[in-house]
């Protein structure tokens, strides 16, 4: 299809879609209304399972099976990215030259690196209590690690980032989620059924399996992100054709 024809087709489709969409939006319940039947049921279910953070309860308890699928989407995407970014036969690796880093940036990075890593672990560990959880905390952990790259250089990042270990950790974390589901199947009769004590509402040990699944996802997200970013950084800095 020619370029002009493609744009014309887009405009025709866009106008049709826009007209239908506007009519549909005007018929939707008004914004911010009090009628949230699923939300109310989810809140009641979360409180009944002693999980203070309802979003975590939805993700790791009510929709646990869905989150398992999501975790494997993440795993597969990371695997695909790593495969695409690997060094091919006609490419060779060259050692990257260290760049100059401003002393203030170096200081800020050195001070912030441990703080960000602790924050990441905190966000993962408190996923059942406060906003956050494995997905968000995992991203904080992985991006925090890359402060080493900003504050120092690539060789320092390579030392604080054991890529081979993280590749294994990613697979283990994804597998652990499925394994926890199987434990539920064997012990309680259905996949991902909670077999752990529900604990005290509002305490760190609460929500049954939610914190455990949360931790598995946190490890998975953090390692997947580091591995994928490692692939991209290697491409940019080390691999030459």
């Amino acid at each position, binding site marked *: 299809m020619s370029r002009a024809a493609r744009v014309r087709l887009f405009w025709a489709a866009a106008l049709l879609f826009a007209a239908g969409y506007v009519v549909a939006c005007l018929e939707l319940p008004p914004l911010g209304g009090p009628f949230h039947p699923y939300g109310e049921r989810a809140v009641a279910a979360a409180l009944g399972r002693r999980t*203070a953070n309802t979003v975590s309860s939805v993700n790791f308890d009510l929709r646990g099976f869905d989150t398992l699928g999501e975790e494997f989407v993440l795993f597969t995407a990371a695997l*695909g990215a790593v495969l695409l970014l690997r060094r091919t036969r006609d490419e060779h690796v060259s050692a990257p030259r260290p760049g100059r880093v401003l002393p203030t940036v170096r200081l800020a990075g050195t001070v912030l690196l441990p703080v960000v890593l602790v924050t990441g672990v905190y966000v993962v560990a408190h996923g059942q209590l406060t*906003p956050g959880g494995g997905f968000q905390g995992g991203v904080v952990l992985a991006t925090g690690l890359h402060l080493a790259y900003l504050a120092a250089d690539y060789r320092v990042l390579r030392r604080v980032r054991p890529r081979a270990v993280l590749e294994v950790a990613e697979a283990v974390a994804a597998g652990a989620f499925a394994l926890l589901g199987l434990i539920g199947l064997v012990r309680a009769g259905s996949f991902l059924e909670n077999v752990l004590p529900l604990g005290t509402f*509002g305490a760190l040990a609460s929500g049954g399996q939610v914190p455990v699944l949360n931790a598995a996802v946190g490890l998975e997200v953090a390692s997947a992100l580091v591995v994928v970013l490692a692939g991209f950084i290697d491409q940019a800095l080390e691999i030459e054709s």
Partner: protein
Amino acid sequence: MSALPYLAAGWMLLVGVHGLVTSRNAVHAVGCLTVVQSGTYVLLLAVGYRRGGTAPYFTDIPAGTPVVDPVAQALTLTDVVVGAALTALLLALVLQTAKRHGTTDPDALTGLRG
């Protein structure tokens, strides 16, 4: 105009698709796809919004306080994670295309090459 956030979501979808259709650079196209996806975040959060509602966690608020819809938030979270993973995969594909074909213009890619 209480339908404005819904309409904004539709607008983001159309702007993103327009960018995809007219894109001359695959990296740009991947960026446009994330704009399309951001439209779904806006739609989901608008659907889940509740006037006067607070964040749906009960560590320090009493049970029964009105909160925004946690189901819509959980769906948005799923969307964000899948979107980020997909963007990384697509960018890796673009990188390979640039290496093998020497171009990132989708129109210049005519045939399969090993």
